[in-house]
């Protein structure tokens, strides 16, 4: 059996599917019976889904046009 500390250390690798099958099973067995680790895994997974799905750090209107204007001297 693995403990909460090991789940914490492997959390990122687990979410990236970058753990062995054996470790994956051990983590899943642990979180099935440990409320805190389950919350930690679920909410970190949600965090990654939010950052990938939201329009974070979008380029504002006008920036592209000014960039191309500045660079166009290179090929004129």
């Amino acid at each position, binding site marked *: 059996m693995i403990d909460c500390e090991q789940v914490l*250390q492997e959390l990122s690798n687990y979410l990236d599917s970058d753990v062995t099958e054996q470790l994956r099973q051990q983590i899943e067995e642990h979180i099935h019976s440990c409320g805190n680790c389950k919350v930690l895994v679920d909410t970190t997974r949600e*965090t990654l889904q939010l*950052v990938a799905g*939201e*329009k974070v750090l979008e380029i504002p209107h006008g920036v592209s046009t000014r960039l191309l204007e*500045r660079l166009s001297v*290179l090929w004129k």
Partner: protein
Amino acid sequence: MQADASPDDMELVRRILVGEKECFALLVERHERSVFRIVQGILGNTADTEEVLQESFLNAFTHLGGFRGEAQFRTWLIRIAINEARKKVRKYKPQLHDSIDETEEDGRNYRPRELRDWQPNPEQRMASKEVAGLMERAIQALLRGYREVFLLRDVEQLSSQQAADTLGLSLSATKTRLLRARLMVREYLSPHFRQRWHQGLLSRLKQRGE
């Protein structure tokens, strides 16, 4: 011609180097959003970011002959942009010059505090713009070494190895920083998304079948 409809980056670089300089506009169009996101994430200031964005592409054009194609054009460009952004940080905050995070490098020192579950579907409970703003503040709250890894891996979706190569870090240091960055972003978001105490109690009771 099909091949000309969307030439890949290497092909565009080759054409630019033989004199079709206007092909650079296609590379700009393809990668400006990535560069903007990363630089804005590092600097947190749109005016400075715009300046660095322009400098990065100018720099890339000038040094295009030195691009050997060992890395993808995108990661080569991102490396240039990160260097330009770091220069800007040093200019305005010289005291931070060497602060690239020797503190608590090891994720073992980190203990999550927020352990209450979140409400289901947080992205449906808050306007998309609000979530994006919150996420940007969470990223800004990270120390720069963690922020850069998080931006490359989780915002830009580079692989851990690509992020490591781009930042000049070992794979293991990249993964350690990534773990810590993800935990800290989660911690920052938690108060905004967590269940109210009675919801938590109800869902626990439900799980137990009471």
